[in-house]
């Protein structure tokens, strides 16, 4: 029987973590994601024995994640933009040491202390590296509370499949809004010694979790290995949603919550006789370059809409390779664009073709 519940995005995500058999959560309060830590503090330990620890900072949280992930347990943290910035050093270490774990960024508007209102201005930080060195996170962008829940189990599966950190990039609006969500069944927590895990020496040889390789040629071998893994992820893990794109004259590209706003705008456009589709990348890394390119060949233009100064639009342009004009509309600082505004931009940018 379906288990349906009305839940806040942050709470749905926290509930999903318990149900995914998560072993440990380490985090630090920051708006607009503190509900994750609060919900888990209340619910998790008594239900599954999951460890929940409020750390003294995001820096400590991410390093606790590093330590615990090295044992092969299912571990996670969550934060919001300024806190994620503090975590970048640790994330680089985790990516280099190839530790599976789940990271969640409930994005708020920046830069600086910014605002506690929603934003998508951490796209570059999430998708293009963020910390030092050449590394990639698998990045998933939910657009509904349902996906906030569903992506948790998926993220753990991907993290362990590739021994790579997975980031759920969401925003303050999705974190705070309430929607109906169908909950996943409870998985039992289970542990497997995966060979590389530091759980106490096995077979006479100490195992080491490290990101240090002092010799240049050894460090290059590791880098080549990481890059090969990222190519494999690009081959297998592309996720996207194309709504009404097949007969469209124009496509709006957007991720996360903004894609839903754009879908509303597209419906309004269709009501006016303008054929608009919405292309929503779900995996931001790997980005669906080829899939978007295919649609781009069939339309007259693309409007990219984001809650930032224009970040994903760079990847959209890389996909399209100049085949059609790509315009950008962004709101910043925590302002959420309205469907009317998106429609207006669409008509303005493509005035000639639309009229």
């Amino acid at each position, binding site marked *: 029987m379906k288990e349906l519940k009305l839940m806040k995005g942050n709470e749905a995500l926290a509930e999903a973590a318990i149900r995914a058999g998560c*072993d*440990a959560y*380490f985090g630090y309060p920051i708006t607009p994601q503190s509900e994750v830590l609060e919900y888990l503090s209340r619910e998790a330990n008594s239900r599954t024995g999951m*460890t929940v*620890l409020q*750390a*003294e*900072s995001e*820096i*400590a949280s991410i*390093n*606790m*994640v*590093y*330590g*615990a*992930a*090295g*044992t092969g*347990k299912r*571990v996670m943290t969550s934060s919001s933009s300024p806190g994620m910035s503090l975590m970048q*050093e*640790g994330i680089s*270490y985790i990516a280099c*040491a190839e530790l599976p774990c789940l990271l969640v960024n409930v994005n708020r508007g920046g830069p600086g202390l910014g605002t506690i209102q929603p934003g998508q201005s951490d796209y570059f930080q999430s998708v293009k590296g963020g910390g030092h060195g050449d590394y990639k996170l698998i990045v998933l962008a939910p657009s509904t509370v349902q996906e906030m829940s569903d992506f948790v189990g998926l993220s753990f599966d991907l993290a362990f499949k590739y021994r790579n950190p997975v980031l759920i990039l969401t925003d303050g609006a999705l974190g705070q809004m309430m929607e109906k969500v169908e909950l996943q069944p409870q998985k039992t927590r289970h542990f497997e010694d995966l060979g590389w895990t*530091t*759980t*106490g*020496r*096995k077979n*006479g*040889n*100490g*195992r*080491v*979790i*490290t*990101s*240090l390789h002092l010799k240049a040629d050894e460090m290059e071998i590791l880098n080549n290995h990481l890059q090969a893994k990222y190519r494999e992820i690009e081959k297998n893990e592309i996720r996207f949603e194309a709504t009404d794109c097949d007969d469209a004259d124009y496509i709006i590209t957007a991720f996360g919550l903004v894609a839903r706003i754009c879908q509303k705008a597209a419906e309004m456009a269709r009501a006016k006789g303008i054929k608009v589709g919405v292309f929503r990348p779900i995996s931001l890394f790997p980005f669906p370059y080829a899939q978007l390119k295919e649609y781009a060949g069939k339309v007259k233009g693309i409007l990219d809409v984001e809650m930032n100064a224009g970040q994903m639009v760079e990847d959209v342009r890389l996909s399209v390779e100049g085949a059609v004009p790509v315009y950008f509309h962004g709101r910043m600082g925590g302002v959420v664009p309205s469907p009317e505004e998106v429609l207006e931009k669409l008509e303005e940018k493509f005035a000639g073709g639309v009229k």
Partner: protein
Amino acid sequence: MNEKTMLDDQHYENMIAEESVCNAENLVYEKPSKVLYDTPMHYCPGCGHGVVHRLLAEVIEELGITSDIIGVAPVGCSVLAYNYLNIDMSEAAHGRASAVATGIKRVLPEKYVFSYQGDGDLAAIGTGETIHTCNRGENILILFINNGIYGMTGGQMAPTTLPNMKSTTSPFGRDVETMGSPLKITELVAQLPGTYYVTRQSVHKPVNVRKTKKAILKAFEYQKLKKGTCFIEVVSNCPSNWKMNPVESNKWLDENMLPFYPLGDIKVPDKNLQTDD
């Protein structure tokens, strides 16, 4: 170094000449071969790190916990501690060893966990993690090597550099007016309710080596009893960056470091739980 304990060349030759010393029944020291890899260490001659590694290895082997222990290495000279200790280990970012150790211990509460950290790592960049790990009373051992200087990066001033002590970044001596006083972080963590056993030892003389070993042994016994954080400071040397030979550096340690960082227990647990003294 204590003159009496120094072996001059003649004495050494005499010893070799007396064959009896090589007989098995006269064995006084054996390398903890199960835990210490048979490989040369990269530490400078006379450096305390090698001695502390050996003590750790001996204790782990004697307690028979080789498969039940996870160590955390810092950033600093001992960043490659896992090249010498044949146990499961995790390398931590600079200053974060106690947070990494917390993460490990929280998901593996039945295992022994320790962090091994230098003064820059533990008392400068990692001060926050050190204090909060101790304050939460994480059931781990923090092994703190204090030689008053940044070794690996080439002799810069550390939080524990003595007043007027010269370093590459206090070339005229540490001026406490502008650079602050050395941080006695061991006394500081002893104030916290989460710490159970806090002691300051050294490895510059055989008698101190034995005491340090005893302290490590106790700390793991307390960890088994889930008593809270055990914190052992080892006042050590850095012959290379102090620009002294090993003997001089140990003498300097005795005369300069120890008056400021007095040896001995700072916080001792319940008397009836004590293993000796």
